[in-house]
């Protein structure tokens, strides 16, 4: 797989001020894959996404995306190379309405979904396009947070806990959306607490513990490794 890797993270370290949160993260994602980062609260999953996106105050190591080393780039340039993030707690802007939220991330490449196609995927957003972004329900806000990065033309998505706190029917819709994106050629790194949801959408799972990747489990082998996983996740 190492030849076809779209993203290769090696020895990624990260800091928030004095606090050292990533201690050498190593993993790869092949083009077209859906990969999850699993682990307990505070293991460093979100920080890993922020590290890839260049949003940590300080990071070291190597993050090669599409053949380009990005470790010295700021988040704006990384975004321009084709990575888009759907952040923890969604990052919907309260002072923008739904459509303004949707149109906010600039197009960085061709091939992004146009507004009609996005409204087709997420009909609720069309109905509520003049509403203030944060007046939407949690599920609609999550749809909006995913939808707005599909417009940009980025084909590599970082999704941070898209199912957190949502009703099962909405979780299902988001699972369906991720599956659809995969068939359309998107590559996705997903941070999840919801292990069952992760197993329903991903090809492979990386286990993050104390700022390091400690194991990798292919989704096909997941039943054989249930015990081990429970140990890692403490469920």
């Amino acid at each position: 797989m190492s030849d076809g890797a779209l993203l290769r993270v090696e020895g990624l370290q990260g800091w928030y001020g004095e606090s050292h949160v990533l201690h050498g993260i190593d993993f790869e994602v092949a083009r077209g894959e859906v990969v999850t980062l699993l682990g307990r609260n505070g293991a460093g999953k979100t920080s890993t996404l922020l590290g890839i996106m260049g949003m940590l105050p300080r990071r070291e190591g190597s993050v090669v995306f599409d053949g380009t080393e990005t470790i010295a780039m700021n988040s704006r340039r990384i975004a321009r190379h084709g990575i888009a993030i759907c952040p923890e707690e969604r990052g919907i802007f309260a002072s923008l309405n739904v459509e303004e939220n949707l149109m906010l991330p600039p197009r960085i490449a061709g091939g992004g979904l146009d507004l009609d196609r996005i409204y087709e995927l997420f009909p609720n957003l069309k109905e509520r396009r003049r509403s203030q972004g944060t007046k939407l329900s949690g599920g609609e806000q999550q749809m909006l947070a995913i939808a707005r990065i599909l417009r940009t033309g980025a084909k590599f998505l970082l999704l941070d806990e898209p199912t957190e706190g949502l009703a099962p029917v909405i979780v299902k819709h988001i699972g369906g959306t991720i599956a659809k994106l995969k068939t359309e050629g998107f590559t996705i790194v997903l941070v999840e607490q919801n292990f069952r949801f992760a197993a329903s959408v991903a090809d492979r799972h990386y286990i993050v513990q104390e700022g390091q990747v400690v194991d990798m489990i292919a989704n096909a082998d997941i039943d054989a490794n249930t015990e081990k996983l429970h140990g890692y996740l403490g469920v």
Partner: protein
Amino acid sequence: MFELLGIPPQVLMGQLLLGLINGSFYAVLSLGLAVIFGLLNVINFAHGALYMAGAFVAWMLLNYLGVGYWPALILAPLAVGIFGIVLERTMLSRLYHLDHLYGLLLTFGLALIIQGLFRNYYGISGLPYRIPSALAGGHNLGFMFLPNYRAWVIVASIIVCFGTWFMIEKTRLGAYLRAATENSALVNAFGVNVPLLLVLTYGFGTALAGFAGVLAAPIYSVNPNMGADLIIIVFAVVVIGGMGSIMGAIVTGYMLGIIEGLTRVFYPEGSSVVIFVIMAIVLLIKPEGLFGRAA
């Protein structure tokens, strides 16, 4: 003519007009402060000095280069805005990762330096600036005499305030500004050039101060202290309206100008403190300001 509580209508309308004129300056200046504070989180104490600099640039253009009022209305804000951009690039941008207080101290120091320089070269007696001939004279409205230039100040300030509000609330660029005000790290991570937004916003906010300075030049004499006198009131206006609220800054600016004018009619002794009394009451009852969002 009617009389209200024994006040002749001419006096009442005259003070209302004066209040509206003052309110026009409060609105344009507090708007600039609100725009800057909203995005940059900098309390721009240099605002008064930049307003004064705008008036002086207009005066210098006229007296050294023979450039009149109308071109100065564009050129002076432009010059002040460019000066603001240089300040942001060379100094302010180094302080964004620190507490608010550092931006305040820096801009306060800059204000003192700028005022000191102008005081040194031009003294404090004030320099006259003629009302442009197209706006000389006035109209008798029956109940009062309305000088044309003062009417123009009110109209110009409303246009600028509305234009700024429209740009921020209704356009794509404004959406970037509002989003970056909420979460600049995320907007940057979408690939938007946030540092460029910051410098342009500071440039625009300072240009607004320069514009107000040009408007003021023919009314108040051009004086190195003109900004220092005004800026304290404008800060009170911003606090009353709510830090960072665009509409709040505009509405509060005009409203307080009028309230101040009315106080001058009904209780002249209170006119110089009424704004600060209102500020104290607002801070007690609604600390985030009349239009502010709770932090």
